[in-house]
């Protein structure tokens, strides 16, 4: 048998699943004692280059409340042409098309390597992809220019048959008609009036006003694509739209001194949602919102237009001093829910130096699976490349995006699903496998994920419901099936089915096995997601305390120690990194709001709850590479001791990419040694981290902020705030030693944290 490491890796590669526990405790009681719940990180659309989709429909269990998909774990009677559902044990006959089935002629879904299989279903007409640009025109001239160029560029990236639409807004909202010739036409909405979807559709002429008693016959449902003049195929309106974008003017209303421009983001979004709702419900669509500032008027207003009242900060929120916060949040939530119901996702591209109201608007993206991109200006490569990357394509030439996903989880009887954390909304589907305990978005076995990409990862939490006195027989396996229906970017409807099984283990007798099956990385991320999820609704310190308590309990459960002897405390290898993750998580911007604006926190959290395990881990604990003359680049401890004068450091926090030149290196660089032929190696040394950074920059979405700094540089704070402050101005003993740089902070270092952790874990009173 391979190691758990390999098993985990293999599972992830094949199914996109990482479980916190790879052996499951056989009873509810034992499961709760394990502290970290049985849970998994699931990447529904994990890229599988070697997985060709099958061109037929899945075979479903005939039991009405099961409907599980035929999978390799099912028992098949080839002679009777009958299969038994491994979830409900219903015996189902194969459909007639499976008549030729036999041991040697098995369909793909019965083969073990197809624990994840993708079906292409031909159901209904192929719906086109829809991209609706919602563009803020209250921008600075260069910003707008850059944005216009990006948008024009994006037209060439869109699939030719995709429908595009354009809504611009400033003080007022304009919906541009794209089909008309000779004359540009747009519909104008006031930015201050909240409109219902019906009103919007009527105003846009999408619905014919009901003519009472017109021969008593209902109007024939019209082909929405034909009638909707606002959403047109790219190939047809390409030129038109390029011109239109090129001529896009800044909001013409002068902004008086001491005022913010009036920005009707709320109404613009409401119009966008209403437009799509009226024309293409349940069709994959992306609303792409580009904003250069906070909404300042109308519904969804985040801050007034007076510059003298600054936008809310965490301080204001804690003091309950944020006037518009609740109302705006409620407004955007309602919009997000409507949009999610119709399967449309909303992206937010916010580029401004100040906050833009992401805190209020985050749910738009969070609930609909849209992106949030935050930058300083549209005229930066950060935005431009990120935006370009939205339209990146995979090895098949398809866009790395999927729409209207519905994820359904089916579990075997001993297991129930508590909830999910990720960019999804509940579909409120009550099936027998839904637990009463909720973790994350619970109470359902189905979630809608309107926007998906190959890295979109949900944390799914389970509960073992087996009672302690009725243990699962030895060797039994629990199974979970994930059924993801979605609209592929090539407009196909697809269903991906992943069925996994894990062994049950008795926690008393097989605790070692269970311990070694612990996936500490997955567990850290899953716990972090729980923490972040809690942090959305609870006070920061409460969440930290909860995390600490969980950590202590875990250490008590699995640590080996003598009572009240901290020095005796040991953790096994499978848990050894977990406390460190927790330490960094506690300091991370996901849980610490200090030094972050509400918008930034929302932004960080947004990405944290949707990225896959690797990226999430980077977010929790940034990676630090060190470059020196002494050897090849090596990962080093995220510790202040790693900051040495003759090193170049490359730190990747997911959101930032920092290249830090140590003091000496910086001096050398300043002196220009790299330009001298005899110091070619120095030049190479300088170049090495740049190349590596470039590699990361190439692939990551969203593009990280790229920072090139040096010892003493102001931007070095990005590094200094992340590293473990093992040396601070407090522990002066380190002064003078040639080991790293002291950090001016009162934060505890990892050492102190661990000391405390050990003390608490071994203490009998805790």
């Amino acid at each position, binding site marked *: 048998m391979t190691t758990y490491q390999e098993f985990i890796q293999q599972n992830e590669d094949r199914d996109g699943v990482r479980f916190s526990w790879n052996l499951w405790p056989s009873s509810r009681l034992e499961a709760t004692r394990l502290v970290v719940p049985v849970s998994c990180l699931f990447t529904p659309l994990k890229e599988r280059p070697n997985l060709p989709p099958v061109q037929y429909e899945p075979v479903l269990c005939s039991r009405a409340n099961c409907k599980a998909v035929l999978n390799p774990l099912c028992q098949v009677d080839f002679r009777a042409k009958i299969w038994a559902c491994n979830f409900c044990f219903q015996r189902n006959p194969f459909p007639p098309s499976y008549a030729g089935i036999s041991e040697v002629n098995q369909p793909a879904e019965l083969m073990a390597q197809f624990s994840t299989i993708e079906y292409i279903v031909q159901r209904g007409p192929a719906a086109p992809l829809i991209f609706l640009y919602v563009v803020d025109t209250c921008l600075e001239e260069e910003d707008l220019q850059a944005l216009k160029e990006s948008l024009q560029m994006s037209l060439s990236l869109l699939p030719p048959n995709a429908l595009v639409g354009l809504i611009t807004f400033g*003080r*007022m909202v*304009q919906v541009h008609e794209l089909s*008309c010739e*000779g*004359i*540009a*036409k*747009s*519909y*104008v*909405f*006031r930015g201050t*009036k909240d409109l219902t979807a019906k009103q919007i559709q009527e*105003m*846009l*002429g999408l619905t*014919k*006003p009901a*003519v009472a008693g017109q021969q008593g016959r209902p109007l024939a449902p019209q082909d929405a694509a034909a009638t909707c003049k606002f959403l047109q195929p790219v190939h047809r309106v390409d030129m038109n739209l390029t*011109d239109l974008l090129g*001529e896009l*003017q800044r909001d*013409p*209303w002068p902004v008086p001194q001491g005022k913010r421009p009036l920005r009707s983001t709320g109404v613009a979004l409401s119009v966008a949602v209403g437009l799509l709702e009226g024309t293409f419900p349940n069709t994959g669509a992306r609303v792409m919102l580009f904003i250069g500032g906070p909404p300042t008027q109308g519904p969804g207003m985040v801050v007034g237009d007076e510059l003298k009242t600054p936008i809310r900060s965490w301080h204001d929120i804690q003091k309950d001093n944020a006037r518009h916060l609740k109302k705006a949040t409620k407004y955007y939530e309602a919009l997000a829910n409507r949009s999610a119901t119709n399967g449309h996702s909303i992206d937010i591209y916010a580029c401004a130096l100040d906050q833009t109201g992401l805190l209020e608007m985050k749910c738009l993206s969070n609930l609909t699976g849209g992106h949030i991109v935050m930058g300083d200006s549209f005229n930066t490569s950060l935005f431009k490349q990120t935006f370009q990357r939205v339209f990146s394509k995979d090895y098949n030439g398809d866009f790395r995006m999927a729409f209207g996903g519905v994820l359904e989880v089916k579990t075997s009887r001993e297991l129930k699903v508590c909830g999910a954390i990720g960019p999804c909304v509940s579909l409120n589907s009550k099936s027998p496998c839904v637990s009463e305990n909720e973790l994350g978005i619970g109470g359902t076995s189905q979630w809608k994920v309107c926007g998906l990409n190959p890295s979109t990862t949900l944390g799914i939490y389970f509960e073992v419901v087996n009672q302690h006195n009725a243990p699962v027989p030895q060797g039994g396996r629990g199974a979970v099936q994930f059924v993801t229906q979605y609209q592929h970017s090539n407009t196909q409807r697809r269903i991906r089915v992943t069925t996994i099984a894990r062994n049950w283990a008795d926690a008393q007798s097989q605790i070692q096995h269970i311990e070694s099956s612990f996936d500490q990385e997955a567990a850290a991320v899953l716990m972090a997601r729980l923490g972040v999820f809690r942090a959305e609704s609870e006070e920061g310190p409460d969440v930290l305390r909860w995390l600490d308590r969980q950590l202590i309990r875990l250490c008590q459960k699995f640590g080996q120690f003598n009572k009240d002897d901290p020095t005796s405390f040991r953790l096994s290898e499978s848990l050894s990194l977990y406390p460190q993750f927790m330490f960094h998580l506690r300091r991370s911007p996901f849980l610490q709001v200090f030094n972050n604006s509400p918008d930034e926190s929302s932004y960080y959290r947004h990405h944290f709850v949707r990225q896959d395990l690797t990226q999430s881990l980077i977010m929790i604990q940034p990676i630090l590479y060190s470059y020196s003359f002494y050897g090849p680049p090596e990962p080093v401890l995220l510790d202040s001791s790693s900051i040495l004068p003759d090193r170049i450091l490359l730190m990747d926090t997911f959101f930032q990419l920092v290249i830090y030149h140590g003091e000496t290196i910086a001096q050398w660089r300043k002196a220009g040694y790299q330009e001298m032929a005899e110091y070619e190696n120095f030049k190479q040394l300088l170049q090495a981290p740049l190349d590596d950074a470039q590699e990361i920059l190439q692939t990551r979405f969203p593009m990280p902020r790229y920072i090139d700094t040096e010892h003493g540089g102001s931007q070095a704070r990005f590094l200094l705030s992340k590293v473990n402050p093992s040396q601070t101005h407090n522990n002066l003993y380190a002064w003078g030693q040639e080991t790293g740089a002291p950090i001016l902070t009162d934060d505890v270092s990892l050492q102190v944290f661990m000391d405390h952790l050990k003390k608490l874990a071994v203490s009998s009173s805790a």
Partner: protein
Amino acid sequence: MMDVPSANQSQTPCQPWAGQKDWSTVSPPGHLFDPLPSFQHLNLGSPSDYTPCYNHLQMSSSSFHRDLTAFSPNNNNPHNSLLYVNNTDHSVQRVIPDVSATIPAASQGSNMNEDIHHCDTQQSSLHSPHNPYQAVAQHFQHPYTHLVNGPQSPHQNHLPVRPPLYGNESPQCIPQPGFEGANARSSAVFTHNHASPTSPIQQQSQWTLPAHSGENINQFVPTAAAQVKSFTPQSPNSESRYGLDPELLPSAVKVMTEDKAEWEGKVFTSEPFSSLPPLATTSCIVEDRGNASPFAIRSTSYCVPCEGQAALLSRLPLGALITPLVKQSAEEQPLPLCKETECVVGCGGCGASMCPAMGWQDCGQRFYCPFCGKLSEVPWQHYQPTNGVNGVRVDKEKRPELSMGSYEILNSQKGEAAALLLAIDVSVSALRGGHLEFVTQQIQMLLNFMNREDGDASDVRVGLMTYDSRIHLYDLSPELSRPHMLVITETEDLQLPVREGLLVPLKDCISSIESVLQLIPQFNTEGTDSGGVPMELPVKAGLTVLQGLGCPGKLLIFHSTSLIETGYTSSGFFGTNKPKSIFQPSEQAVSVVKECVRQGCGVHLFVLSHQDVGGAWPGDIPYLTGGALHTYSHLQGELDRERFSTDLKGTVETHTGYKAELRIFVSKDLRVSGCYGLFVPGPNPGRVTLATLDTWTTLAVELAHTRALDETRGVAIQVVLSYTLQTGDRRTRVHTLTLRCSQQLQDTFRHYQAQTLLTFYCKKMYCAVQERPLQELREELQTEVTEALASYRKHCCSASVSAGQLVLPQYLRALPVYINSLRKSEVLLPGLRSSIHQRLQQRCQVLCMDTRSTATHFYPLLLPLPLSADGSNLPKPEEALRCSAASLEPRGLYLVHTPLTLLLWVGTQVPACTLVELFNTSCFSSLPSGETKLPVLENHLSISIRSLINTLNSGASCTRKLWVVKQGDSCEEALQRHLVEDKSPNGGASYADFLYHLHVNSVRLLHHREEHFMRYKELKCN
């Protein structure tokens, strides 16, 4: 009430003597001193008796007196032989002699003048000792105003004339018991007379005979033509019920002709303390010598009574008609323009501008402001010494503000240039109407024309807007590759999505506009007709555009859908905002207008599919903002199309002042008590704000005394108009008029002109219709004139005038016919066939007319046309005929010209060759009637008549359709409306009846007063 209202009452209007009941109430038989008409004498003998009488009557005045005494107890009813004394200053002297003197005049003729003068001198010494002024004035007065109806005087003699009833010193006024019986008898005869309406005609022919002999004293003697006509049967409309010969009544045509003869083409020098200017209908050249042109300010009286009491006594209004932006004729000196900084500033106290009426004092250091009575210092920059301590400034002639009655100041502050905003209805019904293509073509042509023109027309900022139930704005900025249409769905409280591109200089956006205009007729006609668009929608939208860009402008709306009424929604059961009359604009309209005025936005509405019935009248907003309402029926006919393009062009090209503020200053002893015209009245009548005004815009100002006036200072009226030109230049135009004032009431009367009074009354009454019932207004009008006549009779004809004599001040001869025409105008007296919309429209159109147009409107020009052309005999306006059916002959062609209509009447017996030459048809019956375009035919007659029509059209402020009316045709009623001397189709009294009534009432009024006075005296004595 004389009129027979037909529209608002259920009476049958065609009953010819329906007014009878009203009449009889005027003459209650029991009245003691009632000088009521009796037809007694008419029935005393057959007409044949008259000739002998006539001969017999050649007797001396002494015999007359004898007659008088002999008959007086018996006869108090002389009225059916009304004597028209054209009473000037002579009237007093003539009162007695006119009876005696005309007796020889009737027979001797040639020596009559001498006789009169002889008598005059005698009588003046005898009868008017209390009025030395008149006695003196007599000698330099123009002698052509005399006794009017000399020929009638035989009857006067024949009948015992009752003694003069006025004059408190009259000893004859003792109640006599015999009267009662006479009255009773008279009423009986009165009814009898109705039964035989032909009798007056017979008499009339008799009466006119002596006219030959009296020609040189009687200006109202019928011409030869009239003589001939008297033998032809007359239209029953023009005849009088009381046997008055319409031909002998004072003629408005004649008054105008005379004035023209005197002034036409001549120079009128307008100096301070203006003399009586030429009539508005006379085109003359005005030379400004320190007083404003009468075409700018025309006072009702050019001699103001000093005492407020006297002014009240005269019963005639004190006021002025102001046309501040009046267009100057080519021969006149252009208005001097001075810069604000270089101009001597006006009064600091009241804000009046500098004018010649300011009195300089202290060697030019201070000036006295006649408007507030304060002394103002002259700033050192503008100081110039005066000639003498109180003389004129030495630089007077160089500075227009010191020497000119009218001048203009260019303000240093420049405003925004005016814009032209076009709003086109593109609702489904408009698109289906099929006329949009034509409309857009016309607009395109107009814009091209404006653009081609060298000069500033191509700099005009133009905006475009279309609308159905939504508003579509167009961003026309030249930076855009194509125009951008912005559909605004939320039309309430409209906000603009863009700014700069909405109004773009024409030369920059002409191609964009063209492309849009070409697209408009092809707009999507799908969708449902929402039923109508409130008029306020495009107005508000246009206004918002102008507000957004901060500029004044003209808003041209091309509306097609039916108009739906808004604004009266809240009038529930207890609704308080019920309109007082149909003329009252809705509150909503008024609030929109106020906004327009603030912004300087003139709305011109072109209703392309006119529905006369139902729906709101959309004209309030256009007219109250200085615009107009033009209606067409789908622009299908060529005439309509032609009219449309002319109207469109006219609307754009008219010289217009925007965002105008008008201030009226009057001498400190007077105040402005009212201001009438087309505007939303503000709290202060002396300060009027107008959205736009053009060269015709005329307001009437009513003045009232606050104190007695100083005769030496006279009266000054200053009109200060601040307005913005099309280019954005802000200018202030100052008109100052100084008038004499006098203690003598008679002076005042003599300086009233009928046309001015008509215009004044017209403005006042047409404004009052919003608040008061029409009947009340009609009665008031009648009462006012009656009282004025009575007052004149009492105060200005010192001695006795026979009760049968109508006395009228010289320049007010035409007043009765004008006032009658005003009374029975469609606005004040609804007719059967006139819709409410027509009346509302007419009211507004007339309200913004100047004096000349108003006069022509109420007394149209009736021109006989030649039947065959030799190219030279085109009728001149001087040859106009009286507006009476009697003037129309079946063998003739006549043109009726008013500012609003142009009618061509064709008689049944017009020679076929004329018809061929003119209409290209030889048959009278196949002649089309109704609106017609004369065919373009290359013969002299056609050419000359068409050129005449063109000339008349060029002077009109709105385009008119030519209506052809065939004699005996059903549409002859259209013509009858304009024959104002006749009984009108809407039941209005004929001129003769009105005049009769007027006179009778005025005499009776005096009588009443006297009686009261006597009783009062008696009471006191007792």
